[in-house]
């Protein structure tokens, strides 16, 4: 049902989650339903706006959102790309999850189907990614996230070993730029 209550129900489902840690297996599926990439790694979230996602070799990628900036490191090109988080939240609904007050919520209609919630972008939303979250029935922990990019790609992220509301070390969300990495600073006012 696409009713304001679905958005409320989702925000209530998210409310008790202050931190979350998990291992993930991520599959990128092409337009014809074929798996074109599989990544594995670890992710962590701390509301309202901190996020950590790291995939293991051979695809060594790291994404850290510290509430102000998003750092994306790709070992293959030895480069860290830094962008402002507020513009990034619009880029990936994953970051939207964290911040109940984020204005970007207005860009989504939320529908509910049992334990699954789908955030579909409204017509004038900046970007066209759709997000579906599925929660566990018992403890309400996040089980899977599916991102559809509106151009035929679907990213399915399955979570395992989910731990919620544990204290996370501060360093989890403060990204240390590798010494030999190139920095591509795309922030409005780059500060290094």
């Amino acid at each position, binding site marked *: 049902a696409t009713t304001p209550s679905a958005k409320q129900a989702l925000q209530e489902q998210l409310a008790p989650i202050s931190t979350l840690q998990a291992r993930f297996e*991520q599959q*990128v599926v*092409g337009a014809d339903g074929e798996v*074109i*990439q599989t*990544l594995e790694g670890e992710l962590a979230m701390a509301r309202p706006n901190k996020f950590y*996602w790291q*995939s293991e070799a*051979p*695809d060594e*990628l790291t*994404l850290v959102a510290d509430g102000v900036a998003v750092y994306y490191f*790709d070992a*293959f*090109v*030895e*480069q860290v790309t830094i962008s402002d988080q507020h513009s990034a939240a619009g*880029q*990936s609904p*994953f970051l939207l999850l964290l911040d109940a007050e984020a204005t970007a919520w207005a860009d989504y209609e939320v529908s509910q189907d049992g334990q699954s919630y789908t955030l579909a972008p409204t017509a004038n939303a900046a*970007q*066209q*990614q759709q997000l579906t979250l599925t929660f566990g029935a018992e403890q309400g922990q996040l089980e899977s996230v599916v*991102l*559809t*990019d*509106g*151009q*035929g*790609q679907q*990213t399915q992220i399955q979570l395992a070993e989910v731990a919620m509301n544990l204290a996370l070390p501060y360093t989890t969300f403060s990204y240390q730029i590798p010494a030999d990495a*190139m920095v*591509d600073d795309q922030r409005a006012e780059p500060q290094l």
Partner: protein
Amino acid sequence: CATAPPPVSEDAVAPAAIARHQQHLAQLEQWQLQAHIALFNLTNDERDAVYLEWRQRPQQMQLRFYHPLKGTLARLEQTPLGATYYDEDDQAYYGSDAEQLVHRLFGYQLPLDLLQQVVIGQQPKLVSAPSYRNFSTSNGDLAPLASYHTKASEQQWHVQLNAYEVVNSKVYLPTAIALESALWRIKMRVRKWQL
């Protein structure tokens, strides 16, 4: 992934082994690859890496660039009628061919025609100082290219094919590719081949 035997010069390889491998490639009507591609602009020291889904058909080349979390970043398609580039918001731009379109949109002189040959290990007509790797197989030796120099998009390129994989237990295709000119360095790690 087959560990590659050491590269040897042209005179250390049987011409039949070179021809046999190139013949296998010539028979490839269509193929598809998933890769990670990194682009180093040597003039302004900028670089970028994206994931790439590449579908090649006799009359059609389709490239899709994507990010693991953000999804599709752009698509580039080329047919005999011309080329089309779709940006992140699916906005389309048209050109006579992919190389010309990319140059017009981004000012990059990228060797997309050469790349279509490089990624499968096909030997361009005009190469210098080629080296090969000799694989002995049940039906005769095969000598895929290891490295060579060639000219494309008004640049001199040094191409290196550093690792190969046997696909459908029949044809050797590259999985680690590097191209370098005075202006660009391009490296590709091919994750998956499909014929």
